[in-house]
């Protein structure tokens, strides 16, 4: 058992080192993709706390992502705040929004909650374009942000700096989520998921945990949204459609429910598989040019068939088998 823990620590450190070295080895475009992947990973961390650990399904996390992005954009362009202040502020707004949404969510279980959050995802683009907010949100025109430059004259490119901002945010949030999940709070969340009545009997305040979990999860999505706004340099209602919310759920399941390390695989899937699908259409000739969606679907089914418990589950199984073959227990 100690050996498995050591192995996990070693793997975490290796991933950390690789992630840190990446922007100094890759080209600008790949660094941008890397930053996008980290942004998705942050959102997935939050959603995994909610769905994986606490068992609340959300089809609407794109909405919190959008609040984070628009909050950052508005604070940066209208209030003139620097991005490092705008993103945390916008994330706090997301926490409050998530916490408040958690209350009605208490009354819904399972599929009903999925539907309620689905409504959130559907409504978001239209609310963002709503006339009354146009002075802030720019309506359908969206908001253009200037990309942050490396501070203190650091010898970094803009892409490298952005990546590092995303990287350290992700590392910090991963560390926080891990501590949260490992301790008393994590056990309470899992207990509520697995047996709510037993959890309440044990003295767990289910309502408080569930709403707080929703809030924290929304905060993660908000940080991701804020980082996305400065990385892309542009927000508009079209950026936060239903597809975004659904892709988050795909990412959590692909990465592995209730596995925090798995989110990196989920994020890689969200970022790269649509590109791969687009590339594959080219090899099927001109007539397939309209089919990236279908190919994406096939790849998704294949991924689920190959690793029904997500990437994290598959890795666990592989390492168990390898350990068995080597004679470890």
């Amino acid at each position, binding site marked *: 058992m100690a050996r498995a823990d050591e192995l996990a620590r070693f793997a975490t450190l290796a991933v950390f080192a690789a992630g840190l070295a990446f922007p100094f080895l890759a080209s*600008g475009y790949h660094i941008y993709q890397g930053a*996008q992947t980290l942004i998705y990973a942050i959102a997935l961390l939050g959603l995994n706390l909610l769905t994986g650990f606490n068992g609340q399904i959300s089809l609407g996390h794109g909405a919190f992502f959008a609040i984070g992005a628009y909050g950052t954009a508005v604070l940066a362009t209208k209030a003139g705040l620097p991005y490092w202040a705008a993103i945390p502020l916008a994330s706090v707004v997301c926490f409050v929004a998530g916490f408040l949404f958690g209350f009605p969510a208490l009354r819904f279980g399972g599929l009903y909650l999925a539907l309620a959050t689905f409504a959130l995802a559907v409504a978001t683009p239209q609310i963002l374009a*709503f006339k009354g907010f146009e002075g802030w949100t720019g309506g*359908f025109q969206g908001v253009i942000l200037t990309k942050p430059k490396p501070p203190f004259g650091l010898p970094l490119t803009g892409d490298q700096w952005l990546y590092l901002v995303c990287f350290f945010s992700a590392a910090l949030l991963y560390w926080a989520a891990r501590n949260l999940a490992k301790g008393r709070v994590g056990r309470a969340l899992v207990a509520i998921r697995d047996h709510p009545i037993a959890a309440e009997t044990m003295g767990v305040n289910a309502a408080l945990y569930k709403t707080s979990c929703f809030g924290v999860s929304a905060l993660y999505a908000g940080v991701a949204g804020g980082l996305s706004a400065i990385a892309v340099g542009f927000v508009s209602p079209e950026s936060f459609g239903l597809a975004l919310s659904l892709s988050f759920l795909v990412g959590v399941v692909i990465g592995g429910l209730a596995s925090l390390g798995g989110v990196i695989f989920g994020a890689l899937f969200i970022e790269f598989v649509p590109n791969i699908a687009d590339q594959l*259409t080219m090899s099927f000739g001109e007539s397939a*040019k309209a089919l990236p*969606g279908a190919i994406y679907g096939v790849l998704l089914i294949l991924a689920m068939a190959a690793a029904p418990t997500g990437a994290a589950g598959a890795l666990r199984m592989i390492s168990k088998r390898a350990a068995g073959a080597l004679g470890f227990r």
Partner: protein
Amino acid sequence: MLTRRTFLQSSAAAVLATSASRACADTPGVTDAEIKIGQTMPYSGPASAYGVIGRAETAYFKMINEQGGVNGRKINLISLDDGYSPPKTVEQARRLVEQEQVAFLFNTLGTPSNAAIRPYCNDNKIPQLFVATGAAMFSDPKHFPWTMGWQPNYQTEAKIFAQHILSTKPDAKIAALYQNDAFGKDYLIGLKEGLGDHAGMIIKEATYETSEPTVDSQVVTLQASGADVFLIAATPKFAAQAIRKAFDIGWTPERYMTDVSQSIASVMKPAGPEKSKGVITAVYGKDPTDARWKNDPGYKEYAAFVAKYMSAKDLIDANVVYGFGLGATMVQVLKQCGNDLSRENVMRQAANLKDLELPMLLPGIKINTSPEDYSPIRQEALASFNGASWEQFGELYMG
């Protein structure tokens, strides 16, 4: 046929040839045998119906390449899916420029998508040519000299309507219904600009949100203003509702409707052929379903292209006509570039199109650009609906 112009061009090209080999080496994506260009298209996602434009353009360049290419170079169009999501557009545009090393971007589709990549293109001096959107914001050479539109933008069209109103009904009272977004607002700006000193003729405005189920109440309000001209800047579903409602409540103004909604199948028929009779719209391309063009050489050229490089069902798709026109415009720019395919020269030549006529543009419509004018197509004709099809009338207008 060797005209004086082609002779001058080819001799100029010969003179440039020596210096051009250096320029080639400097421009990414350009070799002696090929020019690589890129675009993003919504092949997946909510706007995937437009993906056929990318297919048509790819097919068009295939045809050009089989005919020997342009100045001996084949055109290699790399068309990537962005799912109509601006963050993805930024990523794909960077991939095209930084990984694929394309010379420039061509006909990237969508207003938000193009808005998202415009800073990147202009900061890095990469031509963002002939963007596929009618938003007027992309014809702004002063602030964004590397970005250019193509089709008549919404303001241009509204100005043309204004001209027609001023010439036929100088004492008109105008009521305007428009969608509350960039498209609708561009329209209103164009109308006011076109009316100039007579902008007071607009006596009532009403907006709607795309989330509203109907525009009935707006139409009733507009009728109550006593207007005798009704401008409809609405997307298909709402345009059909507006036409029907106005008729049903016995309001009979002169109706002008944006070309966004001129589809007979999805607007005029649902509104009712009787009720939509007499509606006026603006057109700039030849309608492939119109029998009038059957023996037109331009249409025949188009039909031959579709027959050989696309499929029969694509023939009547307005998006294919659009892609065909874009491909031809691009080829003309590359021809004018000669052997100097540097990004500066591509942009210079795109802003130096003179009286270019295309097979599927209405006769007389000429594409003109200059360093101060980034709106290639500014002319349109008016057409009125006769209950079955659009009938073009009058002369060409310049907006």
